[in-house]
């Protein structure tokens, strides 16, 4: 297997991956190391993981990180309510303490959270740890332990070894600097906004029904728009929304009606100041250049 097979497999699932990204994915699979993807919001980092799980026909297990995420949300938690009930009913049945303890700290009472779930699958799943930079540094440390040994220690139950090594993909928007320890453990790929040809291929692959002229105009417009000074640069997802909006409105040429173009910009510009900045004239000018 070479990296082109990965690229082709992703392309079959309508994901156009750059060469660098394909090589990185191929290595992540071959070397069984986690892959850290960084890049601006909306360049398709999360989508890589989803597509990879489709292409390999495995389960996608997703852990969305947020501030304050801790072990009980990410790895495992005991089902406390059930434990409490069991203890009460056991007391009425006259069960001994030791037996009760063994029972309530068994796998039946364990709530598996994404990380534990990912290492206890029969076939290697794709484990997506999304927006790792939102979690705090304490969580990074937990994660390192899981990613290096692929095992989870539960004090009451012992160590749970991985039955299969998941394919781990981490994404980051760069809102916080990740620790060096985590970066070292991972392969790294920076996902940039796609160039004109790649983005055209993405649009063609996702919306095959869009006609050639409009597709070229849309890509030209979005590429030009990214060079403007915007608070939030539109990503690939926004571009697809934009194309879908234009098609839904039955527009065949971007330059033909500035007012309609302006109204579809809500799919691309997501802050008030960006919308104010891109007046109808400016939009029409960019569309004219793009055509």
């Amino acid at each position, binding site marked *: 297997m070479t990296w082109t097979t990965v690229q082709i497999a992703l392309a079959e699932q309508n994901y156009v991956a750059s060469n660098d990204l394909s090589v*990185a994915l191929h290595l992540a699979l071959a070397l069984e*190391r986690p892959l850290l993807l960084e890049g601006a919001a909306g360049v398709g980092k999360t989508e890589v993981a989803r597509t990879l799980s489709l292409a390999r026909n495995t389960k996608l297990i997703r852990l969305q990180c947020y501030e304050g995420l801790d072990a009980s949300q990410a790895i495992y938690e005991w089902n406390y309510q059930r434990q*409490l009930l069991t203890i009460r009913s056991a007391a009425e049945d006259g069960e001994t303490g030791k037996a009760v303890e063994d029972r309530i700290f068994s796998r039946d009472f364990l709530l598996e959270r994404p990380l534990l779930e990912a290492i206890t699958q029969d076939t290697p799943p794709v484990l997506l740890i999304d927006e790792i930079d939102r979690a705090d540094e304490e969580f990074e440390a937990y994660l390192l332990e899981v990613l290096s040994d692929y095992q989870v220690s539960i004090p009451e139950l012992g160590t749970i070894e991985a039955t299969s090594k998941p394919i781990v993909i981490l994404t980051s928007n760069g809102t916080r600097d990740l620790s060096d320890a985590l970066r070292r453990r991972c392969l790294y790929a920076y996902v940039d906004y796609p160039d004109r040809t790649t983005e055209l291929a993405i649009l063609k692959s996702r919306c095959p029904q869009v006609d050639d002229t409009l597709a070229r105009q849309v890509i030209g417009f979005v590429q030009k728009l990214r060079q403007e000074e915007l608070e939030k640069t539109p990503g690939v997802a926004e571009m697809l929304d934009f194309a879908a909006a234009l098609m839904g409105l039955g527009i065949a040429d971007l330059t033909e009606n500035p007012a309609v173009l302006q109204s579809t910009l809500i799919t691309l510009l997501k802050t008030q100041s960006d919308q104010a900045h891109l007046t109808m004239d400016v939009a029409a000018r960019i569309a004219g250049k793009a055509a």
Partner: protein
Amino acid sequence: MSRVTRFSSRDSGASARMVGFMAHLRENGLRLGVAEADISLNALTHVNAARPDDCRSVLRAICTGCKEEAERFDDLFDSYWMDSGRVKQRVIAKSLPRLNDDVHSSKDGTGEDSGASGSATAPDEGEGEADSDGTGKLIATQKQNLKRRDLRDIVRAEEIAEAEAVARLIGTSLRDRRSRRRIAARKGDRLHFRKTIRRSLSTGGEPLTLLKRKRPDRTRKIVALCDVSGSMSIYAQVFLAFLAGLMRAEKDADAYLFHTRLVRITEALRDKDAMRAIGRLSLMADGFGGGSKIGPSLQRFADTYAKRFVDGRSVVLIFSDGYDTEPPEHIAAALAQLKKRNCKIIWLNPLKGWRDYEPVAGGMAAALPHLDLFAPANTLADLAALETELGAL
């Protein structure tokens, strides 16, 4: 077009070259351990190693760890593998400053000691046009001071130690009560189920003692921006010492200098040796004591670093007198943008301590509406006195 490097015939094979490449990368500031060479060789067996582009992608995925490194990697790769024999060329003169020294490699990743070099800094000759002699020349200068000054002449080691104590004090007064994690505590607002159930086992399953958990206090991140333009140079001593102390006291703190440009000095100040840190700083702070472009510098900060390092838990400290050569609207716009990141902005102005001072300088007046606190600060004692006011924020 570059060609593949021809290695000498005495070269002992692929692994030696790979080790050489790792050394080359380390020399250029990438932090790599011993394991990377091994992984790289292993990884190359998974692709067609005879194709330079494949090798490039593979090595990029393994050896780089952030965007900046990934961007520089092409040049580094070319200079080693595609340079037709000219091996080990230094690609970028500035070495990437690093946060800590704990590369898990026995080899020292830096290979250089900027603090000890000293050759690039000229001792202060005191002839910079903007150098204030304390007689109150308070006009922002437009001239960019290109002379380098060795900041070690200005800041003394004892001051840093003193400043460290002040910085610690300020750090403790800035507590934020918004951690989302909960930890076990004697008094808390939520039940700590895990502990409660464990404890209840001893009472036959009857949870007699309810254990609680609460949100712990959390420190705020301090981001300090220090104006070192000509009009500020007599105060620079205090603030630089404070910055150096701050870096040593708070592990999350972040520091920048600006005059006509903005320079991030966090890594330099983290040096274990305080004086060496200041030495490294002088290498980065060329232009010290020159003109001031507060607005553009703040704007640049808001556009770049702030997006990564400033969030709702940050307190941005700005040390400046507000004398700007650029229009004041720049300052207002930059601060407004910074404020959107939900941080607190504190402006410490040495002139405010003067009797009858009014913030009439255009820049200062423009900044006022965006500030959470506008306070005087001339000496370390003044900074220490801020403790209570900061605590009230």
